[in-house]
């Protein structure tokens, strides 16, 4: 409820569409990839240090975490195919012997498959999110604000509290 209220607040606020879109895109990477890994630490650093919308990041992380469950086998197979590819063996061997390679855990099939997939998807999700946020603000924001459920959320203590903190 609180997270949803924050999302509505962010969508309706004057936050830059890029900030929100970056939050969604980075949340997608976080959600599709395994939690334990160097990439997760890097994502957290980016989200916290740069002005990325945290609410968008958290919502996207939750949604893509759920999506990753049925996709995990496919992502793992992709990673395995890449790791076992004859032409890439020399690259993997060099990486395997390096500290950064070991820390990245690239030799884990699901990590590699999901990370590469999410990196490929990243620009598409980023741009699509930005467009959707812009479209939402231009065409639907006023209409959505009239929904009873939205008015109920806006009237809740949570929303009032976030509004107060945010202003």
């Amino acid at each position, binding site marked *: 409820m609180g997270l949803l209220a924050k999302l509505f607040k962010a969508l309706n606020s004057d936050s830059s569409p890029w900030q929100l879109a970056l939050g969604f895109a980075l949340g997608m990477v976080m959600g599709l990839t*395994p939690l334990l890994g160097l990439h997760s*630490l890097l994502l*957290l*650093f980016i*989200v*916290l*240090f*740069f*002005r990325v919308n945290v609410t968008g990041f958290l919502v996207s992380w939750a949604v893509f975490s759920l999506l990753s469950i049925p996709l*995990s086998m496919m992502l*793992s197979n992709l*990673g*395995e195919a890449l*790791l*076992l590819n004859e032409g890439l*063996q020399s690259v*993997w*061997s*060099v990486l*395997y*012997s390096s*500290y950064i390679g*070991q*820390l990245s855990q690239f*030799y*884990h*099939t*699901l*990590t590699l*498959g999901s990370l590469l997939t999410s990196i490929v998807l990243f620009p598409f999700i980023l741009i699509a999110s930005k467009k959707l946020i812009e479209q939402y603000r231009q065409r639907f924001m006023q209409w959505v604000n009239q929904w009873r459920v939205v008015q109920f959320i806006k009237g809740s203590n949570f929303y009032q509290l976030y509004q107060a903190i945010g202003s």
Partner: protein
Amino acid sequence: MKSIIRLPGLIAFFVMLGLMAATSIIFMDYWIKLVAEKSLANTTGAEVNIASVEHSFSPFGITLNNIQLTDPKAPLTNQFEAESVAANIDLAPLLLRKLIIDDLTISGVQLGSLRDSKGDVYREPSEELSQVANIFADAKEMLSVDDILAKSPLKTTKAIEATQAVYIKHSETLQQQYAALPAKDTLADYQKRIKALTETDYKDPIKLAAAKKEFDKLQQEILKDKKRLNDFKQSVGQAKNELSPQLMALKVAPGQDYEQLKSLVAGDADAIKDVTTLVFGEQVGEWSQYALAAFDIVGPMLKTQGQIEEQQLAYAGKWISFDDTSALPDLWIKKAQISLQWQQENIISHWQDITHQHDVLGRPTVFSVNSSKSSLWQSLILNGDLWLSQSGAKAKQSWALSGLKLSELNLVSQEKLTSQLNSGLLSSTGKASLNGEAVSGDGSIDLKRLIIKATGTNKMTNIVADTLNQLKSLTINTDIGGTIGNLDLSFSSDLNKQIGSALLSNVGAEQQTKLNELKQKLNKKTEGMLGDNNHQLSQWLVWEKVADGDLSSINDLLEAKLNNVIDETKDKLKKKLFDKFLG
């Protein structure tokens, strides 16, 4: 325009990192304890207890205190117990998933120590029959001589079978060959025809030429018969050579069987079958456990590899390994010192280069024990090395222990027989090797200055007890076999013979009658066979003699020549021609 960075976020990031690090450090000891207990329990299949874990950062090291590994075969005892295991670990290679331990010290190791409480067993060990179960039970009903003969693997039976086999193998061939030999009439006919051809006065050259042709044909026939005789002689010689030693073996087999079986008639066969193992097996097995402790350490290392690979096939991706160029094995203990506690003595073993990837390291694990300063023994030397690779394990070790003082050792504690070694001196040498999972080797254990106190409760066990009480020295030979984690030790000595002799000197009237019956029945088994086969051999010898005579006659026949007659006729013709020319 707002800045694209936010400093509070950076602070939050580092606070979060700090919290994670602090949590790891606070709970590190507990997590290590949990992980170590779980992994060791997976390996051994029984409860593992670690009292506490400590760590230090400079140098980075971990110490596990009071480790107890429950013996799954006997949950009230520990398979392995150590006061502490301390390891100094290189941190940098850990990032490359390489566990490099500079120095490992395992102190206060005890094998087979008692536990405070029964340990849980997670994986039931395979059943092993107790070697000492049901020995010297109440005497069974005495077997009849016929039963003993039927159940025992007799040399007599084997010798009879072997003799029959030789007879069957040659008999038919020899009979056929003998039947094909030239008869006496044939030889007489040859002689008559040769005489007729050589003694005729040939005036007509045409008749002479015909006689020459017939003579040549006759010679060919005689040569064929000569070949038959030679072949027959060769076959007889071969049969004789094969049958003679079998007949010799057949003659001595009943005596050998009697020697083997007489102790069975005199006493309980099962009880004296392997008395060395029954009396000394348990104790020697325990000593061997110490001597071969190195192989027990290798075992879990080999088995753990397989288990890790199985776990990697689980859901949520796989870990793929690549040839790394770091030239470091995944696990490498550069130097280790293991202190094994035995009675009041500490046996310290030194290890170098412990790993399971010797191909990567390029040198074997070497271990040694060299202890000469002890109140319990004069000297103890143990050396060995091992090499584990993808193709399997190879290891070897040798030991030499001299002058180990033994005292108050319980040997057998059975209802019918109790035996205790009050004092003695033990010396042992031996070697063992490991190839793949198969262990092989041998050793000898010399026991001297023995003082054994044994007590029996029936006639049989009284004799065994008396023999043990009189025993002053004994050499036990040990054969080591089996596989890692499931060693198969067998023991032999002349104790069985000593007890067998003691039993024979105490036979009663009934047993003496049986012994006589045994001797008689064994001799009877061979009597017929020896008679038949001797007759057969005699027959073959007669045939050989006949063949010799015939061969001699044939050789004489072949010496006869028609050339003289031809030459004489030629001379006569020449003379006639000269007379006509010269007028």
